[in-house]
């Protein structure tokens, strides 16, 4: 065996080895995702291209703020605002770990500084103010920063006369901020009163899961409320209710479809249609400022305001 042959055989051996080497769990999980609902094994790239919705059973996987923004905003139109706000530790809270440690852990997991991302964007050409919550960061819990960023965004919508869209996903209050967490419910709801009085449109989108203080404040105050299929939405958690009433709850209880039946949401919209529906609702309500002829949707004019900023 000459040197050339030796190299060739070594390469062959190595390649054979590489092919045979099983995927690590991580690599495997990155490639394949099992549907939580129908248990089908889905190719992750296909799933991603399908809005993270199972093509077989339409199960809507939970998605993060970044991906949501990608899905509903016109490419490159999202301009983030108020990203300079970070949680403090006003109570010096310690349970089995300190609050600052838990925050670092949340950021490591989600890559986000807080559980809501806020900014302005275009949705099929219509300008709006957009807040997207991320359940992957601290369970989407509402502390001072979530409340403050949301409130500032409402004020920005008022200032620029923009419609407002908030995509919620939250387990409820940030207990580590105690009473301050609770007060964010009042702060955001009070700001929404001003938006309401100003005649600006607010569309609330409820996604898996939305509970507690977020539901009982801004999430339920939309002029229209849209829910994603299968999303679980409520005030009290299922377990708390079952313990209180001492009986099992039916499976469909607190799902988007159940809420629709009980008159609590306007529509259940599949993720692939969300962008279009948001645009249609906003376009329908666009009107010129008082005293001016109706010569184009307000959204367009506001779009110019945003792009000039």
């Amino acid at each position, binding site marked *: 065996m000459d040197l050339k042959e030796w190299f060739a055989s070594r390469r062959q051996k190595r390649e054979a080895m590489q092919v045979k080497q099983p995927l690590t769990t991580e690599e495997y999980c990155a490639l394949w995702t099992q549907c939580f609902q129908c248990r089908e094994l889905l190719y992750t790239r296909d799933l991603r291209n399908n809005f993270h919705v199972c093509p077989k059973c339409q199960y809507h996987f939970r998605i993060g703020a970044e991906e949501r923004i990608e899905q509903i905003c016109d490419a490159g139109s999202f301009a983030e605002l108020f990203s300079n706000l*970070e949680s403090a530790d006003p109570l010096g809270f310690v349970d089995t770990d300190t609050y600052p440690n838990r925050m670092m852990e949340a950021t490591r997991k989600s890559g986000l500084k807080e559980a809501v991302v806020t900014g302005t964007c275009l949705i099929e050409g219509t300008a709006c103010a957009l807040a997207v919550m991320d359940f992957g960061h601290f369970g989407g819990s509402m502390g001072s920063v979530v409340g403050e960023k949301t409130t500032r965004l409402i004020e920005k919508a008022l200032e620029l006369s923009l419609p407002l869209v908030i995509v919620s996903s939250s387990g409820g209050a940030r207990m580590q901020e105690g009473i301050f967490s609770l007060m*964010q419910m009042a702060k955001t*709801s*009070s700001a929404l*009163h001003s938006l309401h009085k100003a005649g600006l449109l607010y569309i609330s989108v409820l996604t898996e899961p939305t509970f507690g203080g977020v539901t009982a404040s801004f999430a339920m105050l939309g002029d229209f409320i849209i829910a994603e299929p299968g999303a679980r939405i*409520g005030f009290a958690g299922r377990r708390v*209710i079952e313990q209180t009433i001492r009986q099992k709850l039916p499976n469909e209880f607190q799902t988007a479809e159940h809420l629709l039946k009980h008159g609590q949401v306007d529509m259940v919209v599949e993720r692939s249609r969300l962008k279009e529906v948001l645009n249609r609702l906003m376009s329908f309500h666009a009107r010129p400022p008082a005293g001016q002829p109706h010569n184009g949707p307000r959204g367009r004019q506001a779009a110019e305001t945003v792009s000039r900023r």
Partner: protein
Amino acid sequence: MPAQLEKKIVPLEFEQPLMLLSQQIEALEKQLADNPNPDLEADISQLHEQYNHLRRSLYANLRPIDHLAIARHPQRPYTRDYFDRWDPQWIEVHGDRQGADDPAMVAALLTLDGIGVVAIGTQKGRTLRDKQQCNFGMPQPEGYRKALRLFHHAEKFGLPVVTLIDTPGAYPGMAAEEHNQAQAIAMNLRELSALSVPVVALVTGEGGSGGALAIGVTNRILMLEHSVYSVISPEGCASILWRSGEKVAEAAQAMKITARELFSLKVVDEVIDEPLGGAHHDADFAARVAGQAIAGHLRDLGKMSGDQLREDRQSKFRRMGSFIESGS
């Protein structure tokens, strides 16, 4: 006569040493009555002194969980007890006008220290039957909608609003969810924040989460000395964060739920002293002091215009929160 005074009052766990001492005094007093003896009399008077000393030091060093126990004391005055004492002629009004009347939320027209007010409060219920009817003070959406109806009534007639808060929280039931508990609370937060009349809240017992805040978005927030106010019950917090039902005291401590702590955090505007041991030791006195404090705030607020009152309330809640803002 502490021994006799304490008789009717159900002691709390941390009050046990006080209870034992009081029983001792009682026994000795009985003995003294049967056979007079100057030595025994001296002993008894010394025990009385000890009792008073112990009582003062006990109540001066309460832990958050002790305040919680007093706030939940079964004999603590409830909303109706305050209304009765403020205005024996108070008029109760009922119903949300949409199909229900929730006994856990009491609505009243009453005169407080000469001021006509719309008063709203959560009611826990005293007897077992009352408690069940009131869901132990946990309102249904219908209760919040009744409150909202009365907020709008107050706005229409320019009447000040007083709210009394004593609730473990909004009721977590199946019908409550289906009737949209979350929306009922959210709507109250939004509408209450924008009233153009003076609004004052008094936390008399438990301020439990969103169910309390739904009648708590007010110009002034007052708390009775032993009342508590928190985002979740200490039991709930302990079970979620510590995953243990035994860490309730730790959770109560960590969340800063007491009136004095919340005053330090500038969330609460005034802490109202209670009779030694708690409002249940002297409900008349507690109601009088609380009523005067509320009336004082209503008179101050009465000097503001409608726009100023709304602005005052909205900016109060606009400031709530604690965060770090780096240069942008």
